[in-house]
């Protein structure tokens, strides 16, 4: 049964719109709210499949309702009922996250079809989330050129996968993202492009200028970074390989030593070690394996209340 929440300050309009659904949809339950605030508060109790809202209402209006729903990350689609003169607000609401709109003057003709379309699309999204929620392990392999602009979208993709699998909370995902960013940047800059972090200590501009030049110079330009991300219910394991000559792992300055804390070169490793549970390099120094253990949310070891300043391990 489809549950629809109708939001309108006019009881006459609420009843009329409700009657359209009663006649036009096969199996429907309808609830009503007279403004955006009452509608938003009601979502705490019952989550409808769809919200149909007027725009202009006293208290919280339709735009405010759409913004609150979007800000709260609630996935319920919202259809706007617009009337002559509020096209601009309707446009703002569509930009804020509303799924569609129907002019009030043609509700009888177009509302049901619009609702059916939106519900069908929303159902596909819900089912996709359900099936992805049942995913227990996945392995992804990436081959990257020496372009650091690949890094943010790659991390975002992995964070989305981990979030869908409900492996980590929001704060953990941010920390994992930070560690991945550092490791991938290291692989491109220090691994494949053989940039010395001491150069960065002297001049950031020169450091990045050399990085840009080497991206197109052999042998650097022919090297790639390979990443394998293995996500399971037990752990998230990331292996990042570069094709540079490697480095003497034993000779790396200890980033936790306060003498090295203010050196940019040690910062990446410090973050990686702080945010991951296990970190290993291969003997050559051109491969790093990082593991983050999955701790069931709410368990004694769940660190969901920790702040970014705190370490994971």
């Amino acid at each position: 049964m489809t549950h629809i929440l109708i939001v309108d300050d006019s009881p006459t309009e609420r009843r009329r719109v409700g009657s359209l659904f009663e006649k036009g949809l096969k199996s429907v339950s309808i609830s009503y709210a007279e403004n955006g605030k009452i509608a938003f508060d009601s979502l705490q109790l019952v989550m409808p499949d769809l919200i149909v809202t007027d725009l202009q209402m006293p208290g919280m209006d339709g735009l405010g309702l759409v913004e609150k729903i979007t800000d709260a990350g609630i996935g319920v689609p919202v259809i706007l009922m617009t009337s002559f003169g509020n096209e601009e607000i309707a446009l703002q609401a569509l930009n804020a996250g509303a799924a569609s709109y129907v002019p009030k003057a043609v509700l009888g003709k177009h509302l049901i079809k619009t609702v059916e379309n939106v519900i069908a699309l929303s159902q596909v999204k819900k089912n996709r989330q359900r099936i992805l929620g049942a995913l227990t392990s996945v392995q992804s392999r990436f081959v990257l050129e020496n372009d650091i602009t690949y890094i943010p979208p790659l991390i975002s993709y992995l964070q989305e996968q981990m979030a869908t699998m409900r492996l980590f909370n929001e704060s953990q995902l941010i920390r994992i993202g930070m560690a991945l960013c550092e490791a991938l940047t290291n692989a491109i800059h220090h691994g494949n492009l053989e940039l010395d972090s001491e150069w960065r200590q002297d001049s950031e501009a020169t450091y990045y200028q050399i990085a840009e030049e080497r991206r197109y110079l052999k042998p650097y330009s022919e090297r790639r970074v390979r990443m394998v991300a293995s996500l399971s219910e037990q752990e998230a394991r990331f292996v990042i390989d570069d094709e540079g000559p490697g480095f003497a792992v034993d000779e790396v300055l200890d980033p936790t030593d306060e003498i090295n804390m203010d050196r940019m070169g040690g910062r990446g490793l410090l973050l990686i070690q702080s945010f991951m549970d296990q970190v290993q390099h291969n003997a050559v120094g051109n491969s790093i394996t990082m593991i983050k253990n999955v701790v069931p949310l709410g368990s004694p070891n769940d660190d969901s209340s920790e702040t970014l300043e705190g370490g994971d391990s």
Partner: protein
Amino acid sequence: MTNIFDLEGALQRVEGDRSLLCELAVIYLDEVGKLKLALCDALGKNDILAASKAAHTLKGACANFCSPAVYDAAWAFEQLRPSNTAQEITEAYERLFQAAERLNQALREEFAI
């Protein structure tokens, strides 16, 4: 005098369902009374914008009965701003509620409410 509302048009909007139209009329008559009070209250506080919002709601509600006289008067009232003169506001108010009262009467007669 022309009809204050178009019964055929109103029935078309509810796919010929007269009992639903009657139900809407009952709800509307209750609503229009409340909106009149809200509008008067707003005018008493010199809050033209609140009064304009009440007129907007009335405009939406009366549209169900295909009544251009009420709809147009509500629309005209909705356009009022604090810069309008007291006389303009009074005239718009009288135009709106004279039309609204005619529609109320017609609905009561049509549906024996």
